[in-house]
């Protein structure tokens, strides 16, 4: 990403936001959007497909299953003692432990995946941000410099933003 200026436009309306995103993407800009809730129109306009979170869930879940199977079988064999006339390694009761650890590991790894992918926790977030994004406004953010900056500003202004802020991008 080149050093330049970041422009953040705040919109009141969903359709303006979507149109601004579509316009910027057509002009070849890399766009970031903000919304007070997950909106599939915005995701669609940004061309999102699947999230890799699902891989984390799957791998975590299978790790849980495997861990539980290995652990229950190993501990049974490690100190073999017949309980209730059942075989030393008796799979049906272990299925319950396997199920529980599948869910546990799957859930935890989903959360870890989410944190990694969406860069959370992030206690020093970006410089320009509108606190109204968690209330009722939508936002569109774009980085550019020179003539491209004017292009971006024009596309954003076409959709009549409530507010337009510009700030120097710190990272190079």
């Amino acid at each position, binding site marked *: 990403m080149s050093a330049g200026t970041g422009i953040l436009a705040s919109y*009141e*309306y*969903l*359709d303006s936001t*979507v149109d601004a995103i*579509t316009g910027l993407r057509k002009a070849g800009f890399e766009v*970031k*959007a*903000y*919304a*007070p*809730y*997950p*909106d599939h*129109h*915005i*995701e669609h*306009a*940004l061309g999102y497909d699947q*999230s890799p*979170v*699902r891989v984390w*869930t799957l791998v975590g879940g299978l790790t849980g299953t495997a861990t539980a199977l290995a*652990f*229950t079988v190993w*501990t049974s064999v490690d*100190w073999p003692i017949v*309980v*209730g006339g*059942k075989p030393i390694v*008796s799979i049906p*009761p272990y299925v*319950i*432990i396997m199920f*529980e*650890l599948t*869910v*546990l590991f*799957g*859930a*935890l790894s*989903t*959360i870890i*995946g*989410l*944190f990694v992918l*969406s860069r*959370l*926790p*992030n*206690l*020093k*977030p*970006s410089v320009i*941000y509108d*606190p109204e*994004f*968690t*209330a*009722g406004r939508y936002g569109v953010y774009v980085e550019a410099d020179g003539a491209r900056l004017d292009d971006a500003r024009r596309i954003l202004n076409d959709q009549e933003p409530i507010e337009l802020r510009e700030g120097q991008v710190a990272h190079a």
Partner: protein
Amino acid sequence: MANGVTKDATARGAMTHPDLHRLDDVNRDVLKMMGPPGKGWWALLGLAATGIGVFLVAWLGVQVPVGIGVSGLNGPVGWGVYITTFVFWVGIAHSGTLISAILFLFRAPWRQSIYRAAEAMTVFAVMTAGLFPLIHVGRLWHAYWLVPYPNARFLWPNFKSPLIWDVFAVTTYFTVSATFFFLGCIPDIAAARDRATGLRKKFYQVIALGWQGSDSQWHHFGKAYIFLAALATPLVLSVHSVVSWDFAMSIVPGWHTTIFAPYFVAGAIYSGVAMVITLVVPMRKIFGLEAYLTTKHFDAMAKLCLLTSMIVLYAYLSEFFLAWYSGEEVERTAFWNRLFGNYWWATWIMLVCNGMVPVMLWFKRVRHSIPALFVISIFVNIGMWFERYVIVVTSLHHEYEPFAWGMYRPSVVEMCILLGSFCWFGFWFLLFTRLLPPIAIQELKEVMPPPMRNKASGAHS
């Protein structure tokens, strides 16, 4: 329809909350709830704290130093109020995840405004339930033996035992429901952060983890939420099944039955939904949330109660029927003893509160009357506690050998701990209503009609 923005997609939500129009209205109303608390809140918190004090004195001050003998537990009846209350609270915990996971996957349009409170209730109920095994084991300092850790002699827990399944089920349930609860809170904590000032802002800044609502955050959040819901769904159904196996895997007459898992799960959802009603009715009144919790919501919860009450009643009746039909003498005696034996009163409280009172929910007028629902929900809470008491105590006190029959009477210590558990639960719930957004801001916005510049949008290009 070039940008694909349509209004009808969210029409269902608009129907559930007809009095909500603007997205930031939700922030205003919900964040207002987290403002400086009134005298009533402090009074309740003080009451809860006092109850916790009594609870701690009874448990750590009396029972731990003196021994489990201060409870009424004895020879035949080794499980009593502690196990009853454990099962009760685990049951209460069920509806939160039911509403947040199962109804999420089914896209039930009425869950949004209730689910945060229900989920908080779940987390606090498991926190309460989790204390009871520790109380019940008596020698608290040995409780860690439940955990499979490599000890000096490499002895491992018996994975063929339902009690160990229970340890895994309840800890998994607690971890997953707490995670799920916290995840759903993050965007709303960010909303609180953006409005708060001073020390509160600092606090929310940290726990919001820097959430900004950017597109990639929402995208991964949405997907993670679906997967967590998919994982939590079978978990909800499994936890109380596993708890029921603590009983059903033994050969005690009255416990040894295959109907227990579905019967316990239905009972858990039943009691959980009733507890949600009990908590949400005062919350709605105190905070003036009429626009958020409409009669439609209560009607839906009442129907869920009605359905599960019928399943529970069916389970009761089929247990009695099968005890008779089996021709098995001990089974017949056990169930006859339940109805007409020493603990007949507990059984009849259970039957009246769980089987008969909810029949009133068939009437729309009752379902639409919030005071009536509140009263019924209290009856259900009482009835469901007694259901577990009946299952635990009446089965144990009258097992196979007549010389081993005996009676159980809860002691003062047990009653203090039982009442204290409600205070412990209430304490956390009271703190929750002031510290975290008690209504899911972001999920409500999802079902509200989005603000459109072009009002006739849909064919807009």
